[in-house]
């Protein structure tokens, strides 16, 4: 698949005190919609692992949509210091800044396509995205991050091995003790079958539904699937499906995190099909 960088524009735009690096891909015959991609906190630059974001930009430009990808503060070619990703401190500032920059370029309709921690951050940023016309949420954490889901499922052998590596220096570290307390609490909660209570994901989706922003939820196998399924069973599915027909839930029995070309293809087809459904009212030129 060819990339569409012949029509790509490199940009810097402000977010707080930092300047972020971004790439705006322009289609040949543009419609008045831009797809803003916000990815996770992995180490890949704005192209994404295995060029998934570059390739997605090329694909949506074939539909006549602009695409915009960027590096968060402290990542890739953006300024700023790296901030440890945490569900309590999502990268909302950068996503909002990207949206504002796109609005300053004349875009009045923005569709966010977001993965993993970027999807969590986008959900949390959604109330401050006035031009939001759709959101694709791909493998977003629901109430626990990667570390928390991993800890909860570790075997006792793993815990014993960890205990053996305990040292006086570690014991004296307040940060280490605090982390251990959190991990033990997670393990105990998992053993007791008590789910971590966190309504932020549910509330963010409900807010999008109330605003009549079409959503596409895509989950593969992986650490967030269980939380997602339990959220669906707790009423989220009914809530989504009784709203507009443009809302869609797609699950795959594959691990999508490696972003291999076949997995990218699965994801792209779902996104394209969903985008075509919400595009019709948006025909016009930018």
């Amino acid at each position: 698949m060819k990339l569409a960088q012949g029509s790509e524009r490199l940009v810097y735009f402000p977010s707080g005190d930092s300047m972020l690096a971004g790439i705006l891909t322009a289609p040949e015959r543009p419609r008045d919609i831009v797809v803003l991609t916000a990815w996770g906190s992995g180490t890949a630059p704005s192209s994404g692992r295995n060029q998934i974001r570059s390739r997605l930009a090329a694909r949506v430009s074939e539909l006549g949509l602009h695409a915009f990808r960027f590096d968060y503060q402290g990542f890739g070619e953006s300024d700023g210091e790296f901030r440890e990703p945490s569900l309590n401190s999502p990268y909302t500032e950068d996503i909002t800044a990207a949206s504002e920059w796109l609005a300053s370029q004349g875009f009045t309709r923005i569709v966010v396509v977001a993965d993993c921690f970027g999807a969590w951050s986008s959900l949390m940023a959604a109330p401050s995205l006035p031009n939001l016309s759709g959101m694709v949420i791909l493998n977003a954490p629901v109430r626990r991050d990667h570390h928390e889901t991993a800890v909860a499922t570790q075997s006792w052998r793993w815990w014993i091995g960890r205990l053996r590596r305990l040292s006086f220096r570690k014991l004296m570290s307040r940060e280490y003790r605090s982390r251990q307390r959190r991990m033990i609490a997670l393990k105990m909660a998992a053993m007791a079958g008590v789910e971590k209570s966190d309504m932020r994901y549910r509330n963010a989706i409900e807010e999008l539904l109330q605003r009549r922003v079409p959503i596409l939820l895509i989950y593969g196998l992986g650490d967030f699937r269980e939380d997602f399924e339990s959220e669906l069973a707790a009423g989220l599915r009914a809530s989504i499906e009784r709203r507009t027909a443009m809302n869609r839930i797609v699950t795959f029995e594959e691990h999508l995190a490696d972003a291999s070309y076949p997995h990218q293809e699965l994801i792209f087809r779902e996104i394209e099909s969903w985008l075509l459904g919400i595009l019709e009212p948006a025909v016009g030129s930018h």
Partner: protein
Amino acid sequence: VVVHINSATGAEERLEHISTERGLLYAWSARPPDAEACVFFCGSILGDFSSNYHRERALARQLLSDGIATIRFHYSGQGNSQGSPQDMTLDSLVSDAKAVLSHWSAPDFSNYAVVGTRLGSLVAAKVVSETPWPVALWEPVIDPARFFGEAARAQRMSQLARAKEGRARGWRSELSSSGQVELLGHSVYPPLVNSLDEVGLLELLGTSPRSVFVARFGARDHSSDGLMEELSRRGFRVTYENHAVSVAWWFDPNRPGKSADLVPSTALWLRNALSAAP
């Protein structure tokens, strides 16, 4: 080209596309005021490209704060650059690096050094072989034939961990029969693999003595002993260090791993090597 002045370092940072016969290459450069020396980065490829990207970024930022200019780029067919991964070969990687480097020859820095990471070490070695420039190598791939074999082994382990059946056939035979092979999510094509047959880091580094820094990640092993001995025999000034870096070859971690003192240590070596350069 898009330019901005970094308020913290005063450096002029540029994002640009550089035209080559394989398409546009994505490059980032930063030049502090009055910088006379420049460090050029040759990153790795496929999974290693992502897993080392943040460390290379950190080193570039450290060098900037030391008043040293830096240039980083994406190879054709990778990252934000144009081109097809199917066309990637060792020659194309070297050609991309030279195209980017020559783009900056006009501003004239008095001294250059090159950093190579993993398979990018081969590219770095080839780039410096015709110059007296010092070169810093992070976890260099000494024997490229093992590069893909290691990924194939990691993939089998990953598949077993996910309770999936590991690949029965060897990756090489699958590459021959299918024209491509998936290794940990990355498509690998014959031109790249074939171009790395019978190529070694030692041969690419040439025989002109220069300063070489080799950093190995993780626990000390003896995999570099032969390289060190041969370079010393050839009169190279060799510095070898081990760093407790979280190793994640080919895997894209969910967050940047700890790099311990790898970055400050490499930056210090580069500063000294550049200031000692003729």
